[in-house]
């Protein structure tokens, strides 16, 4: 019986092309708070967990300011969908699609993410 052991060892993994890239231990994530991960190509991802434990990942770069800060925004639920609000100028981004809720012409990359 290795179930308990596996739970504590769960890793947050991000899909990059064909590979799953390991970000951190699942236990590192605080629900409602993000972390930033440095990707092999130099890009950055912002990774979040909601209160139910669901994981999300989008590009960390705030397209409105150019600063890599989306992981430090506050998350929430808007019409049933999860979002993060940029800590700089407060634009909100859908965590599943990367779409900006306040400017439909803007979108950031969204990543597939899982705990495994």
């Amino acid at each position, binding site marked *: 019986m290795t179930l308990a052991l596996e739970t504590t060892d769960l890793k947050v993994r991000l*899909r*990059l*092309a064909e590979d799953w890239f*390991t*970000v*951190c231990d699942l236990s*590192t994530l*605080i*629900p*409602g*708070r993000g*972390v*930033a*991960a*440095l*990707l092999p*190509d*130099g*890009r*950055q991802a912002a*990774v979040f967990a*909601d*209160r139910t434990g669901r994981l999300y990942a989008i*590009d960390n*770069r705030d*397209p*409105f*300011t*150019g*600063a*890599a*800060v989306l992981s*430090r*925004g*506050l*998350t*929430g*639920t*808007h019409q*049933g969908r*999860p979002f993060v*609000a940029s*800590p*700089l100028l*407060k634009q*909100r981004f859908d965590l*599943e*699609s*990367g779409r900006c809720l306040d400017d439909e*012409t*803007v*979108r*950031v*990359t*969204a*990543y*597939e993410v899982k705990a495994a």
Partner: protein
Amino acid sequence: MTATPGASPTILLVGHGMVGQRFLEAIARRGLTATHRVVVLCEEPRPAYDRVQLTSYFSGRTPEELSLTDREFLDTHGIELYLGDPAEAVDREARTVTARSGRVFGYDVLVLATGSYPFVPPVPNKDATGCFVYRTIEDLLAIEEYARSTATTGAVVGGGLLGLEAAGALKGLGLDAHIVEFAPRLMPVQVDEGGGAALLRTIEDMGLSVHTGVGTQEIVVGEDGAVTGMKLSDGSELATDMVVFSAGVRPRDQLARDCGLAVGERGGITVDERCRTVTDPHVFAIGECALAADGRVYGLVAPGYEQAETAAAAIAADGTDEMTFTGADLSTKLKLLGVDVASFGDAHGAGGDCLNVVYSDSRAGLYKKLVVGRDGTLLGGILVGDAEAYGTLKAFTGSVPPVPPESLVLPAGAGAPAQLGPAALPDDAIICSCNNVTKGTIRGAVTEHRCTTVPEVKKCTKAGTTCGSCVKVLGQLVTAELEASGVEVDKGLCGCFAQTREELYEIVHALRITSYRDLLDRYGRETARGGDGCEVCKPAVGSIIASLAPAIGASTYVLDDEQAALQDTNDHFLANLQKNGSYSVVPRIPGGEIAPEKLIVIGEIARDFGLYTKITGGQRIDMFGARVEQLPLIWTRLVDAGFESGHAYGKSLRTVKSCVGQTWCRYGVQDSVRMAIDLELRYRGLRSPHKLKSAVSGCQRECAEARSKDFGVIATASGWNLYVGGNGGATPRHADLLAQDLSDAELVRLIDRFLMFYIRTADRLERTSAWLERIPGGLDHVRDVVVHDSLGICDELEELMAAHVSHYRDEWAETVNDPEKLARFVSFVNAPDTPDPVVAFVPERDQIKPDLPLLTIGLRPADDALEGSATR
């Protein structure tokens, strides 16, 4: 010297007071300023100001704030205003006016708005040094100067409206104040015997000495010619260092007399129903200098405004309306020394054949009288001590109210007082009598002009912009109208909570809720329960929990457990996020006082980490450009050197600025630095609806700029004055005086209560200035609550603050000693030692500045960001 009139006809206005200014606005509105040359001669050295609010100068309103006009208005309409240059002679034949400067102006229409002058009884030595009148800003400046430099006792001759205001001002200046009134009661014109008795009790309770039924026979002077006392008609002598005459006013009609215009027996330039002088069709008279067609001189601003409009209509003669002035309502509502006094309609039952309905409680200083006709018509009334119902009652005057009159004057709780709201008023009821605005107009502002707030309605209709006594009724009308037109006013905090911040505070406090999720799932909107909330309510609830932490058993450390997820990034990293993703660091420097050793530590840290340093407006030092992983290293050194968090990142107390005060400054009267340090250490870390700023000045010169702060303290010779609700920034507001001459302990206790009451009742991100403007009753209500404990909550407010003070811990000391918390301070969770490459700097003026990344919004191809994958 003659000023050559241009080709266009000239309107010459003599006098730029409230009524004169209103006349200018009226002719501008009618387009007369475009077709006429408009010249204004003004005796005072400043343009029109709000004389009704004159006394508010002593509670901190500046002459600039009292001003009723500005350069832009005058320039836009091409109005030539000559300040300090009164008209000295009128030649009606030549149609010219000669000013004191010698300038001569021709006119086609002359409008006299010369106002009135204070009546000074012809007693010996009435012009001695130390004798003043109470009429202009210059008078007030002179009184203030003399009171501060020379006097300890002051007497006011006249117990009417202005006399009481003057006496209150003298008391506020620290003098023993006396009121000498010839009539047997105070405010003899407005109130009757019963009202006078209620007023007397309240005024005496405030520490003013009242002498009624006695006249002034002589001003007694010393060898140097300055006032030492006054002899009264009952044979007694009153020792006093200064005398302020406030025994009524007389129309200023000398200019008119000199040029042969008809004046009344008791003064006043005789005019007809259109405000034209009966002597000369080219000359008009308006305001307090005019004897109206009904044979009266009106000393109130509302009739004056009506006369200004009437004269403008007559001059325009465009046939659009035939305005006439045949008399006016003398209703008034005042707040005198904190006491409500109102009279309206036929307050003395002069019309005969009427009944009085009286409620009187002299212990509570309450007196209310309604004058009712035989058929039940409300004819008028007097309210002393509580004029809450004034707006409604006045509007019902002349009609039969839908409820029995006695129910309108009984206090709440006695019997079943009628809740007669303004909704019951007819549309033609006048709500704002200063500006003659009816209920129908106000309703129209909401329904037709789509105003949804009181400030919008004020701007749209001018209602409530002069004396302000109708603003409460205005608020009720706007709310009622919005509800009636189906506009649902959602006062909820955000999409997650239907409650206001104040309501959430009460829920959290009463039920000791320490978890945001718990609050959301139990009290959130149905649609929001079980969700993740939003960026609006999370920090707001986080702040409420932090403010109440000791009382509800929550952790006082904002990064503990679930609380950490509620904090904005600034609070989460205990530093201020800057535009490129770096942070700035501000250690606390209480009162702005810092020893050289500590200054050196800050300098060394800034140098070692390559930070940009700047002195802040709050007398401390901001270090910019720290990457998130540098924050713990910086703070370890700061904490070791004895610094603690400055909370520059929090919606909490920032700094308490100070001047050097008595210790060094030759003018200082108290130790302002010590007080600033004490206050800053007491309230440090206090989470509140918005940031809080404070300052302490060591004397009235106010070098610490305390009156631009949320709570500002200014030293007096005998203690401290506490000002609240100040603000700098985009909407500057001078703080209002809350209480004066406080001891150290009284000061701290009042601030404790004030801050906790603010934290309890303010909206999210509502500074104290906006809060004071919004809450019903404004400053007076706040004073009632925190000074007089009208809600009985002061003990609780003090306990909450005491708990905050005793539970305070330095967040940064706590954080640098907690390895688990420190692990969060990394740029990358998977590469803790790698700095964020986006955070880069370039040199500027021997320091660094952010090297900003290029923005690519709008340039990025649409297919570059595919959902769910990253292909490059």
